[in-house]
């Protein structure tokens, strides 16, 4: 047994309607889309930053759209979160079922008693080929769950996985391979789900929400009816029309959605090339409904051209200037991590002035003794400007000089500034720092703080 003692969600702020993606698309049906400087790493950080980290002894990162090769996303995220060095950090990158794969393994690790708290993160960010936006499932989002052996309101009582040899569509050495869909659905999906369902559900009537995460979910009614389920028990996927299909994060997001809806006995089934099953018991909805909050707060992208800019062809452009080059150094990022990433400041022991950057003597009182302090990620704009000539996907870039709450001053870019008219940040505005990509063109990702409104 394991419990979900905490969770986090990160959906990008922007959504695009199907009707903008394609004239045949529906109005009101939306996909969540990353801003130009977001990716699975920044979203994963956003989803996990508020999860209590004291006793985490493992981190699993699931994605079907990895951004690194030969580098573990889980290790990288563990470092961003400043978790203990050398903790168990594994990546799950097989496909869109990897989110529940990670959950299943985390549950087993805890159940065996070897691990106490494992952070499971599922993240997917992918842009389909131009013209395939409505047929290829996509939607950007991250779900993070903290699994624990402590007692909690939400318990995973059963977790099992049933493999299937048949994947509907896969690539072999970069070649796309697809079975006849009728064959793969019957011999693959239907066969696997009905076989596994027989072996897992003892008492269907006690379940008040059945979640089936599969592109073929609609064809599964008969299979579930055979095992004694009724249609009313099915939890409809209400997320796909709001944020799209978020790949490996989707099953976990559907689970959170039902928990936030107050469902108490949940059967979660996640099918891709085999099925993962979970039975989850909850004593009631969480007080703070993080997913619902993020589902209801967004701005719409209002043209396909803006969507293309967000997708980025590769160049880093302004109206005046474009470049593929921008200096980035792994060595500097590592050496200056305490300052750059963890926001450790320096407090003058004499006059108490707090500096973001290290200095030998206090500029104010010339004292040479400093203690290290943790700076806050919220603050007030002291002064600012809009840079029209610095290359950016959506120029101008707003540069904000920010006095952080509790001390320290930092100068960073403002982000999510797709609509300059809506960027009503002025001197005195409250802002908060978010982790984003500094080099947007993906040639060499490096992550740093940018600011968004906090009012």
């Amino acid at each position, binding site marked *: 047994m394991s419990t979900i003692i905490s969770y986090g969600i990160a959906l990008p702020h922007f959504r695009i309607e199907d009707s903008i993606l394609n004239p045949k698309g529906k109005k009101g049906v939306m996909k969540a889309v990353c801003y130009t400087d977001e990716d699975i790493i920044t979203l994963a950080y956003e989803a996990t930053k508020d999860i209590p980290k004291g006793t985490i002894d493992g981190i699993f990162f699931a994605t079907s759209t990895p951004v690194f090769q030969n580098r573990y996303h889980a290790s990288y995220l563990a470092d961003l979160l400043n978790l203990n060095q050398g903790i168990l950090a594994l990546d799950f990158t097989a496909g869109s079922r990897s989110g529940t794969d990670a959950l299943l393994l985390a549950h087993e690790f805890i159940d065996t008693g070897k691990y106490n708290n494992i952070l499971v993160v599922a993240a997917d960010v992918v842009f389909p080929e131009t013209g395939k936006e409505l047929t290829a499932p996509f939607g950007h989002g991250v779900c993070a769950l903290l699994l624990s052996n402590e007692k909690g309101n939400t318990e995973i009582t059963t977790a099992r996985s049933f493999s299937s040899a048949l994947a509907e569509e896969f690539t072999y050495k970069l070649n796309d391979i697809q079975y006849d869909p009728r064959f793969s659905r019957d011999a693959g999906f239907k066969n696997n789900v009905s076989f596994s369902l027989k072996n897992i559900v003892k008492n269907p009537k006690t379940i008040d929400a059945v979640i089936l995460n599969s592109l073929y979910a609609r064809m599964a009614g008969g299979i579930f009816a055979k095992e004694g389920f009724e249609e009313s028990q099915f939890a409809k996927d209400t997320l796909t029309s709001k944020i799209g299909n978020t790949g490996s994060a989707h099953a976990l997001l559907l689970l959170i959605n039902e928990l936030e809806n107050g469902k108490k006995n949940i059967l979660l089934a996640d099918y891709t090339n085999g099925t993962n099953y979970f039975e989850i018991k909850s004593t009631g909805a969480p007080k703070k409904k993080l997913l619902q909050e993020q589902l209801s707060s967004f701005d719409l992208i209002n043209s396909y051209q803006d969507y293309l800019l967000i997708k980025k062809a590769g160049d880093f452009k302004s109206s*005046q*200037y474009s*470049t593929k*080059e*921008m*200096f*980035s*150094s792994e060595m*500097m*990022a590592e050496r200056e991590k305490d300052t*750059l990433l963890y926001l450790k400041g320096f407090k003058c022991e004499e006059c108490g*002035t*707090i*500096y*973001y*950057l290290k*200095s030998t003597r206090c*500029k*104010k009182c010339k004292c040479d003794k400093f203690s290290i302090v943790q700076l806050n990620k919220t603050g007030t704009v*002291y*002064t*600012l*400007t*809009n*840079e*029209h*000539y*610095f*290359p950016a996907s959506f120029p*101008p*870039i707003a*540069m904000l*000089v920010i*006095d952080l709450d509790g*001390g*320290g*001053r*930092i*100068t*960073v*870019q403002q982000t999510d500034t797709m609509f300059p008219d809506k960027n009503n940040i002025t*001197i005195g505005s409250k802002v908060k720092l978010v982790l984003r990509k*500094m*080099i947007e063109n993906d040639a060499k990702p*490096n992550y*740093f703080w940018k600011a968004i409104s906090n009012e």
Partner: protein
Amino acid sequence: MSKQADIAIIGIGVTRFGELFHQSYDDLVRDAAMQAVADSGVSMDDIGAAWLSTAFPEIGVFKGRSGMDLSEPLSLYNIPVTRVSNFCASGADAIRNAVNSLRAGECDVALALGVEKLRDRQPQDSIVKMMVEYGHPFLQKGFTAAGTFAVYANRMIKEFGVTREDISTVSVKNHYHGSLNEKAFYRKPCSLEEVMKSQMVANPLTVLDSCPTTDGAACVIMVRAEDVDKKKHKPIYIKGLGLSVSTGWDLPFFDPNHDFLSFEATRQAAKTAYKQAGITNPIDEIDLVEVHDCFSIVELLTYEDLGLCKQGEAKELIRGKETQLGGKIPVNVSGGLLSCGHPVGATGIRMVVEVANHLRGNAGERQVKNAKRGLTHNIGGPGAIASVIILEN
């Protein structure tokens, strides 16, 4: 500090500033130096030591990395030649080093020459590229030079009730002055509306609030005052010389003590120079000023830092046209950086040549009447380094 020997400028030379596609870096060096040598009446072989000021060899033509790039075009060999680099204060610092060498007795005739060749590259390859592609990957990333001064403008607007019109009026004034300067890059006056409606660079600063970076060179030849031959020379005396590095590249934007209303470096440099020159009330005791108007806001702010008015009152000086030619204290009658253009290493020396011309009564149409004492000011980096020089006839 003991009383220091007076130093006299006996030779001045300046090229046209602008897009000098027909002149190379070496041509510019020769042009400015030969003018100064001819003006001084000394021969090239009398020069005992020289200083070369080029701020950005790496975004120019990769020349000016050392003193040899002065020696070669002038065939000026077998003497000490040093390259000086201190951002926009490089030229003034070359003069300071020459002055100190004369005072120390290292040489009897010293040459300081500033030169920058930026237009052999596309504009996109120059200073913007430096800010975008080089430098720290995170700290200040997103700023161009304009932005680092625009944050001062917005704070001035908030604190002192400065308006966009006040800021842009500086540009209108300097472009009018520039129309009278045959060596300026832009020789066309512009209206307030044109300045305010031109392309925004970093709000509230527009293209016409920003100086162009150009090609150009300027040169001065100096001796100790005791060596001046009044029959031969028209000497201009260096009465005060202050240079201060008061912050760094990153600190201004990360220092909670900084108010973005003043440049400490300018105040320190002015304090030193005023003390040496015995100036206590600058607005009454100085006849003309060349201020580092790389962006129009910097001129406004510098009125206050130089003590031409109290803090917060710069807007009154510009509104009352006090700093225009014919006003109480004309500022940038050359047209400033806004009109002349800004070949970074040359600008400080160009200003000294400008003031010297006024003090000699040789400034033509834009001559400040009865000019006896003038001031030049440069500010470099993000307001980090400033120089102030006081000149008298």
